[in-house]
């Protein structure tokens, strides 16, 4: 048996009523309330990273609910995929683009009423379908675990093979689509757009998180060109847009001591061959 349900296995009554709940049912309700609360905070908080972390609580609460229903395999997969990978990916994306400490005034979208309508409608549809499908089904928590790995596997590959394979094809399509999109973006990045937010300045607490040098190569070459002695030739050889992020990163280097050296070290560590070739060209032009 699992850890969480170990102290909670109370003998289920013969007749199922709502007035004499068992320990597991009470625990299920409480965890459900916590999960629901965390979900509400996730969508209402104005701090972006806090929202992602509350999402961890929400998804973890769902995993505990699966455990209480003896679906151990599903519970661990939930933790593995959602908490371990999806949220990490989310946090990675946030840190790479925009993760200010404190409130984000622009966290609320103008579409929130439409979003709320869609969310409530889909939740209602899901609840209706699930309640209608499992109206009088009760899980015997004392017998052999109905959601063990063996039972889940047998059911998945005997009764539900076709949906399973269809989902696999869907995932494959998503995978191929992601590769196609990233290749297209690579071809277009020959003339990168100006990062307008970098000019207007990032959040004061995380100084350089918006014009981060890992993703864009222009600020890196720009810094090199301006810090070098023959700066005019270096900036001239790059496209006209490059000068703006270059100045932005030098000003941030002025406000935070040591930032310039960090960008330099970063470019040396993570520079792609293309960047190296570009800077070599600049050296030649100079």
């Amino acid at each position, binding site marked *: 048996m699992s850890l969480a349900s*170990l102290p909670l296995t109370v003998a289920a009554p013969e007749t199922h009523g709502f007035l004499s709940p068992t320990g597991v049912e009470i625990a299920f309700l409480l965890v459900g309330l916590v999960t629901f609360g965390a979900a509400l905070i996730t969508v209402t908080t104005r701090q972006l990273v806090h929202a992602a972390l509350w999402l961890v609580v929400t998804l973890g609460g769902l995993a505990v609910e699966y455990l209480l229903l003896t679906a151990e395999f599903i519970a*661990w997969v939930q*933790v*593995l995929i959602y908490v371990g990978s999806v949220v*990490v990916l989310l*946090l*990675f994306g946030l840190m790479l683009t925009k993760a200010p400490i404190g409130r984000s005034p622009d966290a609320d979208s103008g579409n929130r009423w439409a979003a709320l309508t869609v969310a409530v409608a889909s939740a209602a549809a899901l609840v209706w379908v699930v309640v209608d499908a499992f109206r009088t089904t009760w899980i015997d928590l004392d017998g052999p675990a109905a959601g*063990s790995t063996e039972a889940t596997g047998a059911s998945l590959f005997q009764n539900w093979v076709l949906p399973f394979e269809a989902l696999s094809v869907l995932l494959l399509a998503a995978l191929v689509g992601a590769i196609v999109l990233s290749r297209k973006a690579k071809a277009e990045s020959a003339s990168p757009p100006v990062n307008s937010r970098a000019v207007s300045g990032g959040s004061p607490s995380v100084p350089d998180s918006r014009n981060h040098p890992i993703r864009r190569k222009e600020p890196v070459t720009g810094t090199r060109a301006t810090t070098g002695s023959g700066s005019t030739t270096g900036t001239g050889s790059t496209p006209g847009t490059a000068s703006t992020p270059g100045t932005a990163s030098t000003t941030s280097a002025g406000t935070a001591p040591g930032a310039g050296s*960090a960008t330099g070290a970063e470019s040396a560590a993570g520079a792609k061959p293309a960047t190296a070739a570009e800077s070599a060209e600049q050296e030649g032009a100079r």
Partner: protein
Amino acid sequence: MNDALDVALRLLIVFVVFLTFPLIVGQTEHKVMAHMQGRLGPMYAGGFHGWAQLVADGVKFAQKEDVVPAGADRRIFQLAPAVALLPYLLVLLAIPIGPGEGAVGEVIDAGVFFVLAVMGVGVLGSLMAGWASANKFSLLGGLRTAAQLLAYELPMLLTAASVAMAAGTVSLPGIVDAFEWWWLPWQIVGAIVFFVAGLAELQRPPFDMPVADSEIIFGAYTEYTGLRFALFLLAEYAGIIVLCGLTTVLFLGGWHGPWGADGLGWVWTLLKTAVLAFVVIWLRVTYPRLREDQLQKLSWTLLVPLSLAQIALTGIVKVVIQ
């Protein structure tokens, strides 16, 4: 009552292991690294060959002031060490060191998935620390941690799945029960990939770009002091124990030894774990740090294809011998 006592005793034993074994590995690392580099290492604390060096370090850490930077997100900054450390305690519960019910903290039906899932949660601690410190070096460290985890989680899962296929079960004691000696050559590629990916997930050298001291000070842990910093270090060494224990259980046959598993099975498990821990230390002294792009390339172009090939091999052999 007896059951409650049994559970309490198991939890206590696991907790003691969790507190002592990382210190033993840490002390071994001090001495082994020193001797490999022609030094003596700690010699004074405690008298005999400096055995109490890490205890003294612990006292020192506990005395230091616990500083939270002014610009930091206080609650998340303070919560992060616990999030980094606790998962390893939970994983230790599920690792069996001997045959039978008595030698494992808690038998878990889907043990392989449990340990990998919970280990993945520990990385959230580093991410939280990196973001909440309000320091750009910390943020860079957090970014590198996330990128590294995303790259190495996949080969780890795939190779663990290969062993589970071979054994026909996802329970950790079940996998060791099904182990035969010829699994060693059969799963050797998977074992190496698992171990390397685990090292990368722990951010141990040569995969320690997230804490590369010459580039970004100490990555996500730059702003931490005192006890919270010590907790992060403890998490790293507990991670070594967990990784070596898991590799032993999944790929090296756990308590199986050349002279049978009667009575002394747990000695074999501990011995194999200790040898692997020595290898981890050895690698730290031997190899220079990889660059960030080399790290990603190693994972996506080498480890993932190798683990897929291992799965294919496992499947073919499994079908042939049935």
